[in-house]
């Protein structure tokens, strides 16, 4: 049963992370082309730093860093009378009330919290990639389109909402499609973040030597479980490819690009 649950976990992660990363990306890209200098620096640094470092390291780093950050903030808010330093040698100590989640919380809270941290980490890392794609896409929208909008008397916010954003998707889609593929292929890393995902279960269920599973009348089946996972991912990426192709055709319709022109001539 838990195995099916873990497949759902992976799908849920994708379903939540993809929009969240897109949101982070949109924010990052908008910040990176902002007129306000500190905001622009922030956007550009975010994109550059996250993309420059192996992301596995980021996955390992962010989970601890976010967890400690949240506990640190709660510690300061909830236990102002606590005077001991938080970092004592090799220990990270906060008061009981600041523990996240609370030690007394039921199991599902712990699991949801872990999952939420995983989603946030994925969103931060993939948001940077998405920001880079969207930043490029916003620049790729032909100048003439924006100038036409200006000459119609739209202000910059209207241009952004009515012209730039609707048109940028066709330029962003190839990049976002790649990103989606990469995101699918990054989901096994959930395992590293301590979420009981399909990798975890393939290892546990398939293994024969763990005493918990000695009831299973088979030998080492982990090879087959991982083969199944491999096939699962292959099918998943293949379907995505087909869907992205369709979406690209649909988005190209009526755009001021060679693709759009071709479709116009065929019609």
């Amino acid at each position, binding site marked *: 049963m838990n195995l099916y649950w873990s497949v759902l976990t992976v799908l849920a992660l994708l379903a939540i992370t993809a929009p969240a990363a897109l949101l982070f990306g949109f924010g990052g890209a908008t910040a990176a082309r902002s007129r306000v200098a500190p905001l622009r620096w922030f956007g550009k640094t975010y994109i550059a730093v996250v993309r420059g470092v192996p992301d596995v390291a980021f996955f390992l780093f962010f989970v601890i860093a976010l967890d400690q950050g949240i506990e640190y903030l709660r510690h300061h808010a909830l236990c102002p009378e606590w005077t001991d330093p938080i970092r004592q040698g090799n220990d990270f100590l906060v008061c009981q009330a600041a523990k996240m989640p609370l030690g007394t919380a039921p199991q599902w809270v712990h699991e949801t919290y872990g999952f939420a941290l995983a989603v946030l980490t994925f969103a931060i890392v993939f948001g940077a990639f998405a920001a880079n794609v969207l930043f490029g896409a916003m620049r790729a929208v032909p100048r003439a389109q924006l100038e036409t909008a200006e000459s119609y008397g739209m202000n910059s916010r209207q241009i952004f909402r009515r012209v730039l954003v609707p048109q940028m998707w066709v330029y962003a889609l190839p990049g976002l499609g790649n990103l989606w593929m990469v995101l699918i292929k990054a989901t096994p890393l959930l395992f590293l973040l301590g979420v009981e995902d399909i990798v975890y279960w393939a290892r546990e269920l398939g293994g024969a030597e763990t005493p918990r599973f000695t009831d299973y009348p088979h030998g080492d089946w*982990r090879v087959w479980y991982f083969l199944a996972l491999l096939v699962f991912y292959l099918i998943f990426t293949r379907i995505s490819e087909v869907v992205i192709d369709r979406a690209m055709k649909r988005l190209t319709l009526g755009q001021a690009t060679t693709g759009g022109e071709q479709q116009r001539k065929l019609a």
Partner: protein
Amino acid sequence: MAAPDGASGMSCLQTIQDYGLRAIGIGERLLPREGFTLCEQFTLIGSGMIWNVYFGLTALVLGFFFATALALGKASPRWWLRKPSTWFIFVFRGSPLFIQFFFAYFLFLSLKSHYPFFDPFSSAWLGALIVLFFNTSAYSAEIFHGALQSIPKGDVEAADAYGLSGWARFRRVIWPTTLRLAWPAYTNEAIFLFHATTLVFISSFPAWQQRGDALYYAGYFADKTFNPFIPYPILAFYFILLTLVIIGAYGVVNRRLNRHLPSANRPKLRWRFNMIR
């Protein structure tokens, strides 16, 4: 933290002697247990980079030739060459490297229990290397295949006009042009590959006698100190350094590949960092 006295310079040299080659089993046997100094973290994580460089470099060099063969196979008009190459590329590009590592490890484990020949395959130096080799071959083959398809028609026609055909045409015209076109993308592939080597020991391959790669040691320190803010930035520092070296080396080759072109036409190397595969 390190004792900031005059002896710390000396003791750091000592640490480098003890742990500089720890990742390949030379030097001190036990890892530091407590009172981790910055020097120890730098040394051990740096020592782990030996593995990352070994995996990356070997897979890249071997993969280059296999990728060329695969790309030619995929572009071949003969179906018995084209189908296997296309499938190979699809399988290795379409599934997560992380799962490939797991699968390969357990595959080698079960093969090992039947045939003693497969003994070394379940250790990282060979088993993980094979996975990385196949993986980078598939990705590079796709890049080379794309370049092969976009060779200017005129170049091939000119070769025909000179009476070049078969092997001579391939070696003198098609192959150099393919490389020239593929090189910027291939540079990115090399960078991704080196980043991907960090997955070896955190997937299933065991770090025998705690001989692991840079991420393995960084994780060790983060685990022991509950402080991710020191080991992971050190790891990032090493990787950024490595990335700069790769970009430099590939830049030299790129200049050589393009040396016959007028300088304005030379494609600039553009690098995009870091995607998981």
